[in-house]
């Protein structure tokens, strides 16, 4: 799975490279941004809000707001990360993206025990993202519209696949319903990815409470 993901990552990187060039970033600047920020949505949005010269604080806050979902994703990794050394856990977290996080979570549910799956696929995604940025910036608009190839639906398609192993069964859908409702509500009214944070926490809290109640009844 890591190789096709790397390829998909190149495709996304192409899109960002083209956009960065149109925004006026030099190749070196676009490359360093992709290599160090390594978060597609926040980089794309930053290009939309870029001014000349750029507003340092505003763009930093914007990036944090869009990437705030990482905080809850990282929290969900605790059972896995706490057994690793400081270096291993932090290297893994540094390359954590939506895609390899979801992949790792789905794999763990299926019985995978080695957290290296997140680090390894994260590195593949990083290489793809940075090289895609380089190609996109160099070729520019000659690339054409990535939407014509359906590249923009890779993420929802991939997430839908990852959902199947995490599916709790029909009788336990209540936390998912709450998570989805809260997420949809906030997505419409609050900027950034707070909708992921709120939906995830609401669903997890309800799931935890229901489990606790069931344990007390049967225990």
């Amino acid at each position, binding site marked *: 799975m890591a190789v096709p993901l790397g390829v998909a990552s190149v495709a996304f990187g192409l899109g960002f490279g083209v956009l960065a060039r149109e925004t006026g970033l030099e190749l070196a600047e676009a490359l360093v941004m992709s290599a160090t920020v390594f978060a597609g949505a926040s980089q794309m949005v930053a290009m939309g809000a870029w001014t000349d010269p750029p507003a340092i604080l505003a763009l*930093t806050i914007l990036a*944090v707001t869009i990437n705030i979902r990482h905080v809850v994703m990282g929290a*969900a990794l605790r059972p896995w990360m706490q057994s690793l050394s400081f270096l291993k856990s932090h290297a893994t977290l540094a390359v954590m993206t939506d895609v390899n996080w979801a992949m790792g979570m789905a794999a763990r549910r299926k019985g995978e025990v080695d957290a290296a799956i997140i680090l390894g696929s994260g590195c593949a995604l990083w290489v793809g993202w940075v090289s895609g940025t380089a190609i996109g910036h160099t070729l520019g608009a000659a690339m054409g519209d990535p939407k014509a190839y359906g590249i923009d639906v890779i993420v929802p398609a*991939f997430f839908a696949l990852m*959902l199947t192993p995490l599916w709790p069964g029909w009788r336990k859908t209540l936390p998912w319903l709450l998570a989805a409702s809260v997420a949809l509500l906030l997505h419409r009214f609050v900027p950034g990815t707070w909708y992921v944070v709120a939906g995830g926490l609401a669903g997890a809290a309800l799931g935890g*409470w229901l489990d606790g109640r069931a344990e007390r009844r049967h225990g």
Partner: protein
Amino acid sequence: MGEEMHVWLTISGMAVGTLLTRIGGFWLMRLVPEGGFVSRALSHLPGALVISILAPYALDGDWSAPVAILVAVAVGRLGLSAIFAVFGACALVAFLRLVI
């Protein structure tokens, strides 16, 4: 301050801020006691997060993401590899965009 400097400081700010979001959750969890409600809630967090990310794609956009989601799940159900599922979904959406 030169304009070049502004660009590099912005990139640095975005990079450091984003890195903090990546490691912040893990650090915060060290402050939270283990066991009981927290452990039970944590086991529900992955699914709740994935559905929270997916729901707006499915319901707040145009037809393309819902079509991709259905195709991916259908192909995945057939037991075919995730590669076929994801790129099959892309190909169908690209084809439909061409036709419509």
